[in-house]
Each structure stands twice: as C-alpha cells, then as structure tokens.
C-alpha cells in the first residue's frame, strides 16, 4: 500500500503541515491579544468620544450616544441598543480584549487597543 502511494506526501508530511497551521494560528491569536488590550476606544463620525480602561471598570454603566447606547461592564463592553432597524452592532456581542464593534448607520466604532493613546489620529 505504502509503495503504491509513495508519490503523494505521507501522513507525516500532512501532520507536520497541519501542526504548523495550528502553531501559526496560536501565534497569531497571542500576538493579536498582545497588541490589543483592555482599552476600549469609542469614536463617532471619526471623532474620538472616550477611551475606557475596561480592567478598571468596577460597576456597569451606560454611555448614551446619538442613536446608540453603549453598555460598559467590568472587563467587557457592548452595544446595548441602537436606533437602526437591523441592530447589527447589538448582535456583534461583547468585546473583552480583541476586535471591534461597528455601527454603520450612526458611524460609531468601538475598538480595543493595548494602551491609552493621546488623540490617536486613526479614525478607523
């Protein structure tokens, strides 16, 4: 059996390939966790509204914006409600340390960053 199929790569080869894929993915996840962090940056219309260090939040509170309400909890942030019909940003769920929540109709972006920055010009 082995001799007949010796032209195609062996099982060991594929195990190595897939192991490499797993290692790369884990490295990517760890790196992306390193470069994002506990700071949620909220922007609307490209203007920065707030930077919140989620690790220092002890009690939940809401931030009312024009059209959206953002819910801040200890270690987490989410879009609580929105006035648009599709509610995409609400369904994007909770952010802890990576990723972003985007509301297109009201042009609101919540983005996780590693550290607090001084007037970051990146409008997203």
């Amino acid at each position, binding site marked *: *059996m082995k001799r007949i199929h010796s032209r*195609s790569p062996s099982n060991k080869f*594929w195990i190595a390939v*897939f192991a490499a894929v797993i290692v790369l993915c*884990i490295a990517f996840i760890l790196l992306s966790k390193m470069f994002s962090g506990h700071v949620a940056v909220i922007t609307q219309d490209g203007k920065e509204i707030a930077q919140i260090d989620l690790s220092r939040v002890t009690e939940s509170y809401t931030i009312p914006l024009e059209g959206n309400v953002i819910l801040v909890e200890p270690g987490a942030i989410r879009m609580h409600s929105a006035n648009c019909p599709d509610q995409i940003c609400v369904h*994007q769920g909770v952010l802890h340390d990576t990723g972003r929540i985007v509301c297109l109709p009201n042009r609101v972006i919540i983005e996780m960053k590693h550290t607090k920055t001084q007037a970051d010009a990146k409008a997203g």
Partner: protein
Amino acid sequence: MNKTKRVALDAVLAAIALLLFIVEAQMPPLTSIPGIKIGLANVVTLFAVYYCGKKDTAAILFVRVALGAIFAGNLSTFLYSFCGACFCFLITCLLARFFRKKVWVLSVFGAAAHNTGQLLAASVFMQTISVFWYLPYLLIAAVCSGAFTGLCTQFILNRIQNRKDIGQ
C-alpha cells in the same frame, strides 16, 4: 448500481446526515466561539463523495442543509451552513481524487473551507470584516474536527470495501 438502489442509498445517507446534524445541534456548544463543532454530518458527505459520486453528494448535502435548517435552526443558520457547505463541497470535490487513501487530509481541507465560507457569509451578513478575527480559532478547530471526521470516513470506507454484499 441501478437507479432505484442509488436513490434509496442517497435517501438513507441524507437521513443519516440529517440525524447527525440534528443530534449535534442539540449538544451544548464546545466553546464560546460560535461555529465551532465536530461536524459529524461531514462524515456522510465525505463517504458519499467516494461511494456515490459528486452529483449525488451535492443532492445529499443540499437536502441535509435545507432540512437541518428546518428541524434544528432558522434562516440565518441556513445561510451560514449553506455557504459553508458550498465551500466545503467545492474543495472536497476538487481535492477528492488526490486523497483517496488519506481522507483525513481531505476532511481537514473541507472543514477549513467550510469555516472560511461561514465567515464570508457572516462578514457579508453583518457587513463587517472584523469577524475574520475568528479565523485562526476556526482553523484550529477545523484541523482537529476535520481530522476526526476524516478518520471516521476512512474507517467506514475501508470496512465497506471489504464487504461485497453491500455492493457497489
């Protein structure tokens, strides 16, 4: 295989796939990340690719996805699993002839394609590309679950080939 036998076999396989799909949907989610599951129904798809041919596989897959959405899901899960199934089917068919003796490799590629397809559907559906942050998680899951379902299929194919009474 004559036509009657073929239709009957396809129907049985579709029923098995549907059952696996529904049973799996009842299990609690393995992780907090949506979309990670074993994908037991893929065993039937892979088996069908080798045993019944591609046309029949497409039929089995479509029946399973459509009925699975009716019995164990809703419209959005249908969209996701339909896109995932299409990608998975395409990749599986393209690569099937290279991996007759290594179904687990084929299965991993299929699972990765399935997850990528679902993410594409999600990114169109939710109008954001930020869902692709999940891709590394889903790829790891695809390697694990794909290898498992592929090995299952390999064992089934080996057993079936040694039994002439089930019949080609």
